[in-house]
């Protein structure tokens, strides 16, 4: 009897654990859904925190400028440099501007911008709100009759949704510039010819898909960072977890959204 008991008892306990984990997962999904719905409910209602939105745009946009410039330029140069040998093998070096522009405009610019923003902006939002939560600053706003969700969450999500598409456009420009400098140095192509060849294969759908992608990425980074920070618990450990969760979840979602949007954009071509 004893041996039977020993072999059967861990199974129900494992099932119970799995059931608890599954329940916690669905509860978390519901909480995220409720958080997003609350954002859409509150964002259109007054009072509108224009000043804070502008301040957040500055924090998320302008403060990421140097990093984005550097990364965008390097991406443009490296991508052009790495693509050249393959095209040279087929005697198709003249296609380099087209290849570079397609890669940058369609995929690299929004994706690179989003990944950098997820690391820099997302983590900073998660840590800032998490720290405000554990030091009761959010409760202090609540009890003083102000609306912390509107002031802290709505403003940050609006800011990332506005600034990340702008940063992505800027990244595309800088990356193309990097690509041009490399092509110009090696093939002696003029700026006018490079730009002409670069934009020739791109369609209106490509621009819109990239812009929509960047808007979706911006919204995702903002809302994930805010969700993680706003619901942070367990003191300083919770702040670290919120910052980390904001980056990891946002990056994961950005890749999933990239796949989905590329698929959807393909239907319109």
């Amino acid at each position, binding site marked *: 009897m004893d041996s039977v008991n020993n072999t059967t008892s861990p199974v129900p306990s494992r099932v119970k654990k799995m059931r608890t984990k599954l329940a916690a997962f669905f509860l978390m999904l519901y909480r995220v859904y409720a958080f997003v719905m609350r954002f859409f409910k509150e964002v259109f209602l007054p*009072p509108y925190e224009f000043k804070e939105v502008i301040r957040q745009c500055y924090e998320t946009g302008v403060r990421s400028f140097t990093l984005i410039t550097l990364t965008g330029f390097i991406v443009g140069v490296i991508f052009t440099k790495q693509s050249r040998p393959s095209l040279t093998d087929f005697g198709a070096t003249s296609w380099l501007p087209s290849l570079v522009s397609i890669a940058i405009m369609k995929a690299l610019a929004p994706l690179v911008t989003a990944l950098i923003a997820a690391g820099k902006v997302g983590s900073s939002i998660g840590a*800032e709100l998490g*720290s*405000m939560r554990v*030091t*009761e*600053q959010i*409760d*202090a*706003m*609540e*009890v*003083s*009759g*102000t*609306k912390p969700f509107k002031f802290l969450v709505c403003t940050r999500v609006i800011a990332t949704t506005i600034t990340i598409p702008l940063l992505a456009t800027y990244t595309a420009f800088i990356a193309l510039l990097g690509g041009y400098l490399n092509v110009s140095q090696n093939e002696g192509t003029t700026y006018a010819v490079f730009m002409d060849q670069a934009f020739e294969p791109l369609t209106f759908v490509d621009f819109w898909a990239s812009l929509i992608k960047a808007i979706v990425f911006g919204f995702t980074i903002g809302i994930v960072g805010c969700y993680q920070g706003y619901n942070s618990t367990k003191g300083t450990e919770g702040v670290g977890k919120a910052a980390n969760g904001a980056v990891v979840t946002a990056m994961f979602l950005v890749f999933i959204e990239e796949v989905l949007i590329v698929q959807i954009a393909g239907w319109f071509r």
Partner: protein
Amino acid sequence: MEKQKAHIDKNNTVIKIRGVEKSFADYDVLRGIDLDLYQGENLVVLGRSGTGKSVLIKLISGLLTTDEGTIEVLGNEVTTISERALEDLRIRIGFSFQNSALYDSMTVRKNLEFPLVRNRKGITRKEINTAVETVLDAVGLSQTINQMPAELSGGQRKRIGIARTLILNPEIMLYDEPTAGLDPITCIEINDLINEVQQRYHTSSIIITHDLTCAKMTGDRIAMLLDGQFQRVGTFDEVFATNDARVKPFYDYNFIQ
């Protein structure tokens, strides 16, 4: 400083708590508590750490919800009130947090302006400046107006936290451990400030503490929270005139050690 006699109106109950219960997971924190706060009174809630003192004032301000029972604040039933009405009610309640909860990214001035600008529509810059200077003067920290919270001492942070609540002229003040983590001299200064706020702003207050000096200096009435219920309510001397093994060590530790 000796506590001045307060003008307490026992016919006017500003907070009425009846049968309130609150649990976290399997732990019953509050087990059917009843309490009244009268107009103009300083009521001290005493108890050991983890007995639900802070939970009580979070329930009063609507930061937490009750499992059972009713809480009436200034004639409004907090447990059933609408979100909008709760926001309006909160403006009439000042909440001083244990760690002050000053907004780290704002200067002292911005911290004080924040609730005012958001709750008083059409207020002019001149009126804002006057209100900020008045409350800073009331807590004796006019010189800190342009400093960041990180540059302030623990006692100064507490004072600014109190000033931030006073700027909306609250009718009720809720103090969560106002003297926790402060040196004895600063504790006395904070106790004096609590009494001064009562006299100057005619507030009714609930002071959560486990500091008996604070209780004795500020409390018109003491309510001792033990095992999730108010076991002893009365003046300081009445509450401690007992041989109850749960109450006596509390007194002995604070005053004999």
